[in-house]
């Protein structure tokens, strides 16, 4: 008994060492043979593992990139925001602008079978099936009969998606939709093959196909030999690796990664300044805006002048240059300039004089004095950056108005709950566009009941303008209608715009032709790893 303990301990150690070495040799990857031609492998870090490879189920932004790698839809967005034909070789639009007929090119799935219009019919109808839980179903509501079918008020057969023959797809819309082709380039409209969405046996049709996916470890996609345009694809392999942000940066420095940062992950905030001054940081605009929501249903922010006062008193230049890093731009309107539509602002940044007057007038209108003002609380989700923004703005408002706004940092779900139930006064928020069209931003506040609104604000003129814009097919006229709508929003100020978002990333110099969409995803169809390009 006495010796047993010691012997047991030693035996345990020895056994453990053997066990470990066994484990190690099992999982040690065999040395690859020296390749004859250097394989073009692009390694990217992501913050989280992709949530699913079925485009019908995906809502989170980081997973959109692998979807665009593996699948292809009717249209593709590419450099400069242009929409080019993908599977839809020819598109014909009816004179009433409601019927789209697509002539599909001959193409195959990764398992060799032909891709036909029936696959699109299957995918889109399954999305709308109320028995299939698709969060993205509402993106198809522009199609006639879609909303009714999805809500159980109509049959799927009445949805206006038809395969006229194997290579011809026809879709009828509820009403003319100027941004329909933008929609077709998003992941919401990607086709899937029936029973081909199991990750172990994924059948896809895009430039790349799934080689293997070790969850939380790496996702490896290789060039898809069945892709119709396979000769344009240069990369041999794309590898997505979930990594901690700091670790990813270190691996980028040791050249184990080709790309890190937006859109799939975030560069550590404290490194942005250093990266910027060393000239290695790459910046691109994002189609996203951060703003404060005001609860217009609660005193005292039901008063428009007070809202405008708070909005005008913010010094956005200080915020973007000093408080938060990342090359974000002060926002003087809701719609970011990256959508290529508008460039001038609706008010002046840091207009403290006017803000003070508005503040006084607002108080008078309500009939209270500054000291009688009920305590105002600013809510936001926990996070370093949000915290800094809140503190900075708190001080700005204190300096201008002499009042002390309370800060309330919450856990994210608690915050969403507060926001939905209107149990807040000022809340930090953001919106990132689904498509490159301003209406996507303006629709957020369309009516009081819109789920994305949460400000309790509604305006008849605003709603009417938005609806009018959908009927207007002339680009310029439509732009001016939308601009009018934005004007109404900025006058009423149920929200105070803060800044337009930017994508900050690091990319090795020899990687070229990657399309980074303002919508927050990467497209590698034309990407290449070439000779080191001398950066001027």
């Amino acid at each position, binding site marked *: 008994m006495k010796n047993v303990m010691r012997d047991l301990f030693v035996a345990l150690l020895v056994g453990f060492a053997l066990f470990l070495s066994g484990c190690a040799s099992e999982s040690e990857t065999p040395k690859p043979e020296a390749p004859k031609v250097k394989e073009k492998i692009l390694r990217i870090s992501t913050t989280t593992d992709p949530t699913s490879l079925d485009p019908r189920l995906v809502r989170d932004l980081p997973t959109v990139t692998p979807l665009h790698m593996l699948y292809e839809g009717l249209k593709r967005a590419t450099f400069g925001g242009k929409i080019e034909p993908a599977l839809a070789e020819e598109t014909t639009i009816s004179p009433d602008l409601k019927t789209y007929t697509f002539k599909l090119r001959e193409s195959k799935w990764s398992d060799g079978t032909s891709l036909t219009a029936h696959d699109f019919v299957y995918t889109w109808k399954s999305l709308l099936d109320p028995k299939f839980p698709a969060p993205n179903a509402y993106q198809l509501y522009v199609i006639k009969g879609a909303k009714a079918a999805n809500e159980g008020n109509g049959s799927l057969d009445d949805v206006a998606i038809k395969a006229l023959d194997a290579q011809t797809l026809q879709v009828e819309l509820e009403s003319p939709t100027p941004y329909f082709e933008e929609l077709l380039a998003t992941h919401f409209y990607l086709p899937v093959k029936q029973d081909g969405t199991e990750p172990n046996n994924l059948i896809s049709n895009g430039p790349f196909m799934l080689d293997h996916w070790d969850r939380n470890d790496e996702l490896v996609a290789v060039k898809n030999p069945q892709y119709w345009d396979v000769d344009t694809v240069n990369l041999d392999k794309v590898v997505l690796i979930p990594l901690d942000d700091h670790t990813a940066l270190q691996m980028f420095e040791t050249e184990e990664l080709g790309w890190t940062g937006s859109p799939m992950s975030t560069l550590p905030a404290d490194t942005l300044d250093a990266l910027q001054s060393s000239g290695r940081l790459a910046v691109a605009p994002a189609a996203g805006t951060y703003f404060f929501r005001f609860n217009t249903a609660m005193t005292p922010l039901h008063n428009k002048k007070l809202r405008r006062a708070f909005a005008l008193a913010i010094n956005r230049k*200080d915020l973007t240059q*000093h*408080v938060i890093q990342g090359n974000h731009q002060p926002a003087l309107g809701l719609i970011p300039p990256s959508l290529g539509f508008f460039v001038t602002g609706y008010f002046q940044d840091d207009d403290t004089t006017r803000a003070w007057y508005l503040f006084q007038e607002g108080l008078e209108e309500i009939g209270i004095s500054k000291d009688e003002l009920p305590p105002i609380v600013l809510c936001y989700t*926990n996070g370093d950056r949000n*915290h*800094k923004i*809140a*503190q*900075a703005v*708190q*001080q700005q408002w204190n300096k201008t108005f002499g009042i002390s706004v*309370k*800060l*309330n*940092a*919450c*856990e994210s779900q*608690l915050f969403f709950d507060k926001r939905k139930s209107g149990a807040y006064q000022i809340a930090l928020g953001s919106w990132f566009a689904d498509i490159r069209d301003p209406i996507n931003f303006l629709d957020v506040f369309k009516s009081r009941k819109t789920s994305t609104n949460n400000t309790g604000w509604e305006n008849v003129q605003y709603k009417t303008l938005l609806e009018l814009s959908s009927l207007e097919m002339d680009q310029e006229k439509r732009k001016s209608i939308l601009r009018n709508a934005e004007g109404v929003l900025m006058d009423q100020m149920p929200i105070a715009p803060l800044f337009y978002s930017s994508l900050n990333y690091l990319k090795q110099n020899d990687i070229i032709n990657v399309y980074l969409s303002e919508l927050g995803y990467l497209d590698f169809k034309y990407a290449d790893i070439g000779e080191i390009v001398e950066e001027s």
Partner: protein
Amino acid sequence: MQTFPEELFLPAELELHHEEVIAPSYSFWKEIWNNFKQRRVAAVGLVVLVLLSIMAVIGPYLTPYTYYDINLPLKNQPPSTMFWFGSDDLGRDIFTRVWYGARISLFIGIAAALIDLALGAIWGGTAALIGGKTDEIMMRFADILYSLPYLIVVTLLMMIMGPGLLTILAAMTIIGWITMARIVRGQVLHLKQQEYVLAAQALGASLPRILFRHLLPNARPHHGNADAHHSLSHICRSLPKLHGAGNTSPNSQLGNDGS
């Protein structure tokens, strides 16, 4: 034959005075204090702690800055005559913020350590001493509490109590005492067989008396762990912060500035 004088055989006188203990007698606490003074390391530690506490109290008054004045053009300055510890990324004086935060950190750290110590020691000690079914129930209760997803409990506390100092304290102590209880239980299980415990029981000592007077003081490791918990407290504060249980800014705590 040798003769012995008679004086040698006179009866001895009764000495009724007892044996005298020459060394001064110490009370329990005096003994701890003496041991403490002997250990240089412990003494140094105490001095450091006292210094920190003094600085926590007077530190923020030594500078012309408050802990919340934001001064963006002067952000991220290295230590200088203007900012003794430099400025943070919003331009606030770090010296002031560190000592202001130290108040909160020291308070929570010491309070949490004491609560965990008291609760854990009493719980674990009692369970071990009584043994049997009571031990089983008490420890299963601890196990159940320990198994619950901690973040859910913290979120719930946050919802009920709102953000604030007491919430952080509650979040830290609600689970923290369990590890202490386990350690103390282990020690007491081992110690309760000692003779002095049996003697105390034979003399009719009550359970609390045995526990507090005899067992706990001898379960030395748990004293040593009080300081471990003190440091743990500092660390753990970052976890509830994830769920907004902390003070609303611009209050600072050491965890805030450090991380």
